[in-house]
């Protein structure tokens, strides 16, 4: 009954989306306010019906209703409640339901908070949002219906894939989808602007909070997924350049570029046409990501080797939306008026540099990800493009971006002072050089370039701090005045500094763990011990443990410092899930500062010895701590009064009195 209710709600949502996608547009063409105003209640109702459908599916999972095929295949009554809930999106059908739920949620947000938008822009944007919703609802109803019943209900479900039975599943896919689908809003606004043939700085101000929000979620979603893969897959890699990871990285790169170009558009009315294109690209890449993951064209842990109809359907959605958007762009973009002028050396110039490199880096990821698919389709040859490709292309493009990043915020709009900025960054550069020397002195082994990488990371971090120091005039003014300045700084300035600092932190972690990490493969007998970095692990033996729906074989290891001091114990395990006859490796992690000891267990032998993989991961936590900084920076920026549409502009007078560096703040 519940399942049928869900299906019915989904059909109604589809019908509603068709209305929401057409009537408001007719309204904008005929200047019919009544037709345009349909969009708002339709978007709200759309969200209500999709939420009912999603809730119905969730209820089937929570109640373990195995007469629903989808529940039977992906759940098990023995699973804890949290996993029964998260398994809703731990499968193809359910994750598409999550996708449209978030889409409808964003649509509703625009409907509620968009009361100050021009009526035509709002009507058009919500209509475009409805087209996307309609396409995906039709996709679910025709090829991926989660509400299909089984004639004779089995007593027990097949269980969720054990790799997914992890708290990570509760956060990672929803955050990622909030990011992916969040870009649908900017896409809809871009299409709406093109339909209307009019765009101005206000457009950027409306759109920027959505970009920021989506970008924040995507950042956290990618970082969370990376940490999950790190501890779950048993060999401690934090990034695999797996096509599915690339699928989430590409929208992030395009979104980051969009975030920055939207600033230029908002402040200076420049880069309008480019910003529109980026808005289209960011969501197109999200759609391509959805296609790569959902169609099963890739060989990876995420693949669904299911019927090809799904792939073809999503491909059709891709072609219609991306092709249509780009065609509309080619036709209408020339109508948009050119924006303001700026010198190459200026804040705008730096942001263009940022965009150029981000988009190019994104393009290399795109080529590396899709080239194998294209080659196989054309010649039948199967190839894999692995980490060496991406390291050799992405890395060299990202390093200049990092080097220039600290300069950007220190430059004035329109015409910057490169020499002045360089002088202000002198201290940061000196700190970076000291860091390079320090890295050379302290570390042994590792690539020769690694200490220079440390230097770049430290320069980025010190540069972000410099920005704030310059603006608050720490040490040059009395403490009270500095504090007042710090409080008076726009939150977006703090946000920029935090996010940029976070990039440096992440880079430092990546360099630390790849250059100076160590690993050991060994077989140990009870009583035997292993040394790594300056730690000694002693294997005490194996024991069994029983969980709700699994059995563990646990290895107990005692960890000592090389000096002999006891630090603690680590208990990696091999986990067997009877329902699927499947085993996973549960690695044990011990955090020491921002570094980790990582221990995973191989198959135990009959004599009680066991194969282990032991890693020392120096600075590895910085990778994800950096992402938190980026997220926090985004949140600060989002709370900036400037982005609260309708808030009065801060007084210009204040900025005019102070130095150019402060003018740059506003």
């Amino acid at each position, binding site marked *: 009954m519940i399942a049928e209710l869900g299906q019915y709600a989904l059909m109604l949502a589809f019908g509603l989306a068709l209305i929401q996608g057409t009537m408001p547009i007719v309204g904008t063409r005929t200047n019919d306010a009544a037709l345009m105003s349909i969009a708002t209640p339709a978007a709200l109702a759309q969200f209500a019906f999709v939420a009912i459908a999603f809730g119905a599916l969730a209820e089937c999972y929570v109640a373990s209703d195995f007469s629903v095929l989808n529940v039977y295949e992906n759940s098990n009554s023995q699973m804890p409640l949290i996993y029964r809930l998260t398994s809703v999106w731990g499968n193809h059908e359910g994750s598409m339901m999550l996708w449209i739920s978030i889409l409808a949620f964003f649509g509703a947000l625009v409907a509620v908070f968009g009361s100050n938008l021009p009526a035509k822009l709002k009507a058009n944007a919500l209509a475009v949002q409805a087209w996307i919703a309609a396409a995906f609802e039709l996709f679910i109803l025709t090829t991926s219906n989660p509400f299909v019943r089984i004639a004779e209900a089995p007593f027990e479900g097949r269980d969720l894939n054990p790799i997914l039975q992890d708290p990570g599943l509760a956060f990672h896919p929803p955050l990622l989808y909030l990011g992916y689908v969040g870009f649908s809003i900017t896409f809809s606004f871009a299409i709406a602007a093109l339909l209307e043939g009019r765009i101005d700085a206000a457009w950027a101000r409306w759109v920027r909070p959505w970009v920021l929000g989506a970008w924040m979620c995507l950042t956290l979603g990618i970082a969370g997924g990376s940490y999950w893969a790190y501890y779950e897959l048993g060999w401690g890699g934090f990034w695999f350049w*797996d096509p599915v990871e690339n699928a989430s990285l590409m929208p992030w790169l395009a979104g980051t570029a969009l975030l920055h170009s939207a600033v230029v558009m908002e402040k200076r009315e420049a880069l309008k046409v480019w910003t529109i294109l980026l808005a289209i690209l960011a969501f197109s890449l999200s759609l391509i990501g959805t296609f790569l993951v959902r169609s099963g064209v890739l*060989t990876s842990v995420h693949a669904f080797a299911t019927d090809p109809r799904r792939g073809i359907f999503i491909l059709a959605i891709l072609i219609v939306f991306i092709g249509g958007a780009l065609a509309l762009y080619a036709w209408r973009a020339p109508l948009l008026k050119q924006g303001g*002028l700026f010198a190459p050396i200026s804040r705008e110039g730096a942001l263009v540099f940022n965009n*150029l490199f981000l988009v190019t880096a994104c393009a290399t990821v795109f080529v590396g990800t899709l080239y194998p698919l294209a080659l196989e389709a054309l010649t039948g*040859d199967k190839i894999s*493009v692995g980490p060496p490709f991406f390291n050799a292309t992405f890395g060299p493009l990202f390093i200049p971006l990092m080097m220039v990043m600290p300069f950007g915020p220190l430059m004035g709009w329109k015409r910057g002072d490169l020499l002045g900025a360089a002088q202000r960054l002198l201290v940061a550069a000196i700190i970076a050089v000291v860091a390079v020397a320090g890295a050379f002195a302290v570390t042994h082994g590792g690539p020769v370039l690694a200490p220079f990488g440390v230097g770049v990371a430290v320069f980025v971090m010190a540069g972000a701090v410099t920005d704030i120091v310059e603006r608050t005039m720490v040490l040059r003014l009395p403490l009270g005045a500095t504090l007042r300045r710090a409080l008076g700084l726009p939150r977006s300035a703090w946000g920029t500094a935090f996010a940029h600092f976070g990039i440096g932190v992440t880079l430092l972690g990546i360099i630390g763990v790849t250059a100076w990490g160590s690993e050991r493969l060994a077989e140990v007998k009870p009583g035997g011990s292993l040394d790594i970095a300056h730690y000694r692990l002693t294997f005490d033996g194996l024991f069994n443990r029983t969980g709700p729906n699994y059995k563990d074989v646990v290895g107990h290891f005692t960890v000592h410092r090389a000096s002999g001091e006891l630090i603690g114990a680590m208990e990696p395990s091999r986990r067997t899930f009877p329902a699927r006859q499947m085993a996973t490796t549960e690695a044990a992690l011990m955090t020491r500062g921002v570094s980790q000891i990582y221990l*995973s267990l191989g198959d135990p032998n009959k004599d009680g010895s066991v194969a282990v*993989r032991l890693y020392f991961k120096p600075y590895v936590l910085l990778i994800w701590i950096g992402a938190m900084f980026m997220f926090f920076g985004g949140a600060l920026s989002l709370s900036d009064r400037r982005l609260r549409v309708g808030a009065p*502009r801060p007084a210009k007078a204040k900025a005019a009195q102070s130095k150019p560096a402060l003018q740059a703040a506003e």
Partner: protein
Amino acid sequence: MTSSKGSVSKVDGQHDAAETARMTRKQRRLVLIGGSLGVLAVAVGLMLNAFRDSIVFFNSPSDVAEKHVGPGTRIRLGGMVKDGSVVRSDGLRIRFEVTDGKAEIPVVYQGVVPDLFREGQGVVAEGSLDNSGVFDADTILAKHDETYMPKEVADALKKSGHWKDDYAQRAALPITGANK
């Protein structure tokens, strides 16, 4: 809000005029386009270079025989782990045979094999052949579970005529819904 914006753009206009004297719009555009093309050219160069060095072809055991893949060429070898062929020895060394029903290739690997490495299951190994025709693997791909046949392996088995329907059935089960 609109009025303040209007005045701002007027001020901008004056600045623009002053700046235009130093660098025309055309020149600026040239700098921008030139710079973009430069970066693009560098990127294309990097990509072509990386493609030459880091592409790995996938081969089934019969492909290896047919295409005469030479020793030392880095490839991915995919097929089924032959029943009864797995031999473990000290020091975490493992030896097994990969088959596609037509041809077989012995593989050696040192290290801990993935959770789902089993006889009669699909496997993808990366490495190269040595002079005696033994495949020396440095990576055993872990990215599949018990219901999932690696796509390349499935295709290779279909090609060699040893595809069984129960593989298809196994492969048809949904695997993961998450993006990780």
